[in-house]
């Protein structure tokens, strides 16, 4: 199996890289041989060669900079999504897939146009929150953290409904976006480690069979404690 960690050194805030480590591990535990390619701005990747593609979150300036480079993959990326390739984008990286991004100074950047949504950034208030999110393809909710300064409007096919945390825009109960096996969420950091059931769900799509999961003891215990703490918190408010 081949994993691509794209923009690994510039879109990598707060431990995002560990999502790739986790995917590599679950595939190896399930008997696969796994190679990981970490590529970035100076490289040219052949997206179709990979079984799993991951992009993490970055500062707003870094994301705008990466967007210009990412456009060279526009057609290939769309073809990958159409073919059902498993792709995960966390944090602000999926903002690149919409129609436009307007930054705090009013500059407008064209996105890849894979989705119809538009993104507006501001530089006054950092929006951060612990998050609990539910979806129809997992029996348990996701836990995590959101750290952003943007509003995303016009998402037609969101990934999660928000139980606790922040939606795509102010007042929105939906978070992230999905298209086939492209999973987009504004959750940051090692989402796949914090949510072992999401990891095995994605791995199953890759493998076409249930992955080995007995080894996830501490991951599961950690998840239960975090979920318990977050529920306690949201009930007291």
């Amino acid at each position, binding site marked *: 199996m081949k994993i691509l960690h794209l923009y690994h050194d510039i879109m990598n805030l707060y*431990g995002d890289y560990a999502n790739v480590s986790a995917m590599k591990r679950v595939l190896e535990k399930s008997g696969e041989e796994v190679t990981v390619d970490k590529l970035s701005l*100076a490289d040219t990747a052949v997206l179709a060669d990979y079984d799993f593609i991951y992009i993490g979150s970055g500062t707003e300036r870094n994301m705008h900079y990466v967007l210009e480079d990412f456009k060279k993959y526009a057609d290939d990326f769309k073809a990958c999504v159409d073919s059902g390739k498993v792709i995960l984008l966390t944090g602000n990286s999926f903002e690149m897939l919409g129609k436009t991004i307007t930054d705090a100074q009013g500059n407008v950047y064209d996105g890849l146009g894979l989705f119809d949504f538009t993104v507006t950034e501001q530089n006054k208030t950092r929006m951060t929150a612990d998050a609990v999110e539910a979806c129809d393809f997992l029996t348990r909710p996701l836990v995590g953290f959101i*750290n952003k300064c943007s509003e995303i409007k016009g998402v037609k096919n969101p990934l999660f409904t928000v139980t606790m945390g922040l939606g795509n825009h102010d007042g929105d109960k939906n978070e992230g976006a999905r298209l086939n096996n492209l999973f987009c969420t504004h959750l940051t950091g090692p989402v796949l480690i914090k949510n072992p059931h999401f990891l095995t769900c994605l791995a199953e799509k890759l493998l076409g069979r249930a992955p080995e999961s007995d080894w996830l003891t501490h991951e599961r215990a*950690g998840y239960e*404690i975090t979920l318990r703490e977050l529920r306690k918190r949201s009930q007291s408010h």
Partner: protein
Amino acid sequence: MKKFLTILICKLLRFLGKLIGKGSSKPGQVALKLCPDILSRMQLPQYIIAVTGSNGKTSTVEMIAHILQKNGKKVAWNREGSNQIEGVTTLVLAGSTLGGKVKADILLIESDERFARYTFKYIKPTHYVITNLYRDQLTRNGHPEWVYDALADSITDGTQLILNADDPLVSSFGEGRDNVVWFGANRLSTDTDTLESVYNDGAYCPICKAPMIYSAYHYNHIGHYRCDNCGFYRRNTKYTLTSFDMDRGEMTIDNRHTIHLALKSLYNIYNILAAYTVASIVGVNGAEIAADMNDYVLKNGRVITFTLGSRKGTMLTSKHENSISYDQSIRVASACKEGCDVMFIVDAVSRKYFTSDVSWLYDIDFEMLNNPNIHEIILAGKYVNDLAVRFSYTDIPNSKIKLFESIDEAADYLNSDRKEYLYVITCFSDKGKFLVKVKEEQ
């Protein structure tokens, strides 16, 4: 009259607050309600020195105050670390006459990096020290560039910037400005040619985003860098760490002044260098500063030595949600040639606000502990499972690692006849839970 009353009320509240052991934010908060621009109505001293940055603010301010006071200066400073505008207001008003004149030669302000723009709207620093900008408390701060933008708003013309030349993002505040003083380290024997960190926040130029080239790394992305695309480069320093002897625990500034260190970490050295720079600018001579800093032990509780039964140890208070703070503490433990045990506690991520986020564990370079100096690793607290998972992504043998959800039980386990020195690495939010089990050395 309004000014007089505001000062009076602030002084009274401060006095009463001290009696009942309250913090120093409230009096300033009330004063700001009564008179929002009270700070700009005060008669301030000749020197207004502000210190900000992600890490080391409190220690740096404490050392500056120590040196200046030793040299006969009267310093007003926020020693309790109440570093937002309310705390600063309390500091200024409580330390002034009823007519509004601050009774000090130097006003020394530790300022929270996010709120500096509010504080310095009313008080313009004459000197402004920025120590570093790291990944820190993402739950509040967003990320380093976000904090950079907030800080940029707080810098006004006429202020002398005092910048860490080795931190590229901090140093870039000086681009296009006159009146900047840089401090930093020359090539050191402890430098590396390649990055030693889980992530690289110096990979791309903060100005133009082209890849940066490093000729030396002091630690993490702190070092000597340049960008061949836009010409941004690491500046020459006016105050310079010229050598650091880790084994002897000595640092030398400007090839002349050698200081023996109570805490042998590069981190601590940058704080000392920043304090040296400020004291020099205020007019204290170098030899005097070096003498004042010799074997200086911080009084702010960042480093605590203790005994646990027959064992001796040191608690290195580090910041949860701040990987470089942890990396520095881990470096200190890893350098223990006699061999040591290391304990990590993550029980409450923050003492000031709620979060359950542990992403920051993945930015810490725990792999440094994979060396023969480290004998046993004890992980404890509510988030022990998350710590265990994080360690599973290092090559450290599982047999070295012990897990305890209960900090009490972990401390009982450690109270054994093992001879190893013990390092305990944790945050303010969790340190008390362990310290109740040990005898602190005074």
